[in-house]
Every structure is written in C-alpha cells, then in structure tokens.
C-alpha cells in the first residue's frame, strides 16, 4: 500500500529525515517508536503532504502511484488519513459542520459515530476549542470514522487520554484498521506512533520500527522492541544499529 524510498526531508534549513525506507503492505499495521524529536511526526506529516516538510530526495509511493508532490487533499481523497497529535483550533467552525463537509454533505451516520465516541455534546462546539487532550483525540478518531481512510496514520493516539477512555480509543482505531476482520480479508493499513505502547493492547501490530535522529534503526516484533526500550532505553537501539 505504502512504499517510502530513501526519503530525505527538510524543515526550513534543517534536514530532519536522512533517508527513510519503509514498506507497509495491505492489511498491515506498523508502529513507530523513538525518542522525542527523532522525526516520527515529521515522517507522518510528510506522508500527508504538509507544506513545511520539504522532500529533498527520495519518493513516496501509494498503491504504486508517486504522491511525493501531490497536494494534501488529493492524498486524502486517495485514502490517506491522519490522527493529529496537536490539531489546530478553528474558531467558529463547528465539529459537526466539519464532519458534514468531510462526509461530502451527507450527515449519514454522523450522530451514531459521535455517540460511539462520546462526542455527541461536541458537534455544536468550535473544533478543538477548549477540548481536553482526550477530547481532542476522540474528535480526531470521530473525523477519521467519517473520512474512512484506507491508510490510517495516528500520531500518539493515547497521549492525554485518561484510562477510562483509552480502551475506547484503542478499540475504535482497531475498527478503523479492520482488526475485527479476518487477516486474509483485511485491506486497511496503519502507521502508528506510540511512546507508551498502550495502544498495542488493542491493536495487534504487525511490525515495529525505531526511529532515532531521523533514521530508522531497527525493525522487528513491536512488543519485543517495546520491551527492550522499556528495559534498556533507546541507547540499546543505537548500539544495536541493526540497519
């Protein structure tokens, strides 16, 4: 579904990603771990196509199509969707109105989706204005439910979410990734950034990657990688230099 080849990315004058290679096949979910500032969010923002992230080398292929220079909205229309870690507040824009716009004017299942995310009371509120950390994340998942992307990226979906809501988040993202379907029939793929690994209790991820200083240093079983990081820290990944 997604293939990234030797991707180098600059933000302003600084190169943040120094040649990333990554392949995510249909139905696979990958998790991305790494210390703060290592470039994980930059990778997601670049895949989505945000303007501040300038690709200087390499390319991004989505279902075989080179999307490296494609505008954000066209990527979204191809089926790429993202759960943001810190989305902007937009004054006057009601969450419900955005959801209708995302649904192409059809209200369809919006009330039901909102109920399932405990967000019914937020449809008439300005998007992200005064939302708590957990509410922002629930609003993000709700938007993705309406958007129905084939490739789901999530930037720290569990951060700021209280224990009561973490299972709601986890199970909802699992449904977005068709985890309720048999592996053979599963089509949707995902790339999820996590620090804590809580999300792995709800989403059986297929592969894990560790990014340090703008490079992917390690691939492997996500739980094993997480255990190593928990016990020995990222130093171990650096020392390992698997790739």
């Amino acid at each position, binding site marked *: 579904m997604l293939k990234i080849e030797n991707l180098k990315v600059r933000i302003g004058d600084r190169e943040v990603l120094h040649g990333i290679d990554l392949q995510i096949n249909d139905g696979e979910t990958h998790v991305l771990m790494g210390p703060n500032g290592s470039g994980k969010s930059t990778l997601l923002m670049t895949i989505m196509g945000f303007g501040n992230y300038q690709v200087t080398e390499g390319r991004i292929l989505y279902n075989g199509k080179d999307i490296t220079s494609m505008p954000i*909205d066209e990527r979204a*229309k191809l089926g790429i969707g993202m759960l943001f870690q810190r989305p902007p507040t937009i004054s006057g824009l009601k969450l419900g109105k955005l959801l209708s716009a*995302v649904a192409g004017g059809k209200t369809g299942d919006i009330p039901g989706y909102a109920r399932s995310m405990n967000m019914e009371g937020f449809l008439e509120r300005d998007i992200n204005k005064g939302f708590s950390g957990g509410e922002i994340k629930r609003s993000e998942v709700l*938007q993705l439910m309406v958007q129905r992307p084939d490739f789901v990226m999530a930037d720290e979906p569990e951060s700021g979410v209280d224990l009561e809501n973490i299972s709601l988040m986890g199970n909802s993202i699992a449904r977005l990734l068709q985890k309720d379907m048999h592996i053979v029939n599963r089509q949707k793929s995902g790339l999820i950034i996590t620090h804590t690994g809580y999300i792995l209790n709800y989403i059986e991820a297929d592969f894990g990657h560790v990014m340090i200083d703008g490079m992917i240093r390690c691939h492997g079983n996500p739980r094993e990688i997480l255990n190593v990081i928990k016990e020995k820290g990222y130093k171990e990944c650096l020392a390992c230099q698997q790739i």
Partner: protein
Amino acid sequence: MPADMNEFYTLPETEQERLTQTGLDVSMENRCGSFFQMDQKILQTTCSAQGVEVLAIEDALEKYDWMADRYWNAVKRDKDKYTKFVAKQEHPKGVVVIAHKGTRAVFPVQACLYLSAEPVQTVHNIMIAEEGAELHVISGCASASGAKRGSHLGITEFYVGKNARLTSTMIHNWNPHISVYPRSAAIVEENGVFISNYVCMHPVARVQMNPEAILAENATARFSSIVIAHEGSHLDLGSRAVLQGKGSSAELVTRAITKGGTVISRGYIAGVTDETRGHIECRGLILTDGTIHAIPEIDGRVTGTELSHEAAVGKIARDEIEYLMSRGLSEEEATATIIRGFLDVKIEGLPPVLQKQIDAAIDASEAGY
C-alpha cells in the same frame, strides 16, 4: 399613508433579490410589521401584531404629543453636518416602531430602505420598546445595483424602557458608489437590554458610523459587527457604550475581513459607576492587502468597573487550511470553511429567525470571499 407594495414588484428581479438578502420578507410570514421606503417615498407601513405600532414618522409626531420628546433626543440634531442636513428636511421620512408596555412581539418588524434614483435618501427612525416590552427590528438597506452615486443618511433613535428588550439587526447591501452615514443612539433604562447587529458583506464606497448606548442600572448592551471591506470600500465603524448605571454591562464584538478595502474598527466603553463590566473584541482577517485598524478604548473611572479589550489581526493560519485539506477538503473549500467560521458570531438573545437571516446574508456572499 399608502400601503402599496406594487412598486416593489415593478423592480427588476435582481433588485428584488438584493432587497431580500437584506432581510425583506415580502410574504410577511416571519414578520409582525413592515415599513418600506424607496428614496423619499413611503410605500408601506403595516403591522399585524397587537400592541405594536408601525408609523411613518410624520404620522407618529402628529399622533402622539410625547413623541416630540423622543425626536432628536438620543441623537442630537446638531451632532454633525449629516444630522443637521436630516433635521432640515421639511417632511421627515422614516419609521417609528412602538412596542407598547408589556408587549412581547414574537416576530420582528422589518424596515426596508431602498435608494433607487435620488442622490440622497434621508431617514429618521425611532424605535421604542416600552416598559417590559420586547421588540425585534430588522432593517435592510440597499441601493439599486446600477446607481452611480448616492448618499444614505439615516438617523435612528432607540429607547429601551425598564425591563424591556430591543434588538436591532441591520443588513446593508449597497453598491460601490454609495456613501452611508447612519447616526444612531440608544437610551437603555433599568434592566433593559439592547442588542445591535450590523452586517455588511457587499462593496460600498463609504460607511461611517459610531452608534452609542447609554446604560442605566443593570442595563445591558451588545453590539456585533460582521463586515467585509472590498477594494474601494472604506468602513469606519465603531460603537460606544457608557456604563452609567450600577450593574450595567456592555460587549462590543467585531469580525472584519479586508479584501483590499479599509476597516477602521472603533470601540469605546466608559465605566463610570461601580459594578460595571465592559469588553471589546475585534478580530480581523486580511485576505488581500488592505487595512484593518482596530482602535479599542476602555475608559475606567471608578474602582468598581472591570473593562477589557482584545484585538487580533492577521491572515488565515496555514496549519488550519492544511488540517482541513487532510480531511479531503480542497484548498478553496478549506479557506471558505475557515472564513465562514470566522464570521460566525452567535448572538445571544436574538430570535432564531433573525440569526438565520444574518447567517443567510453571510452565506450569500460566500462565493465572494
């Protein structure tokens, strides 16, 4: 006075549409009364609600002796050259709306002022909500789209009695050759509420106004302006509130967009008595190089007053546009959605039919962002 709208129907359809955008509801389905003045000719004064009167100003002055005390009282006749010009008119035109004591009108009265062919239109309105009454007025002002020049001088005096509530919603739809000088003021008695809304989304040569509310004990005033200055438009707008009575409060809110024109947004609140509160908020969006100049003034005189202001002027944040694009909206759709949100000021205490009218006036111009 004639109550004949036939002349309205002789107007080209496009002109009828322009008037409808300002809130004119010819069917009268959601209106309790109506006044229509074309140039200096009054075409309609009608009212179906009990306890509410809609009168041409000359008739009102003749009918009620006390009207003389309300005539050139809130607004002084020698305030400036425009008021002096209007005061000179031998036969003043305009409308008087009276909601008599305790009357609560559910639907608004519409006042429609249309500048068709004459170079100057003068209007003098008086709106009165007597003690305990509730009155909603929607004034739509428009000019013929082909008019090459013209001035509209409109005086409006508002009187809000004790425990009364008066809302005034004014929607302008002029053209690039018209200059507009409204002069209005409100006197709000104890526990009275005065809400004034102004919407101007279309090009106009010049609008200059600075309406004022004088507030007695526990009275409230709220002014909201939603405007777009197109290239060649000069909008010098302001509102003033004097918190004279203990417990009174005022809020002045502006959303201004420039597409190459000028918006000067003045706000002034004076807190001269204890237990008073006032807040000025101005937000400006520069879509094309132009001017948005916010001049908020808060003038506190006693320890028991709390006054504040906030102003912000800038462009649409790129991260907001890109966020919406990541949900599948095109750049144009994302920009229009953000602008529509920016202009979305929900006005507390306004009947839904009027909020809808404001929303419709903004939506109608959406293509013009």
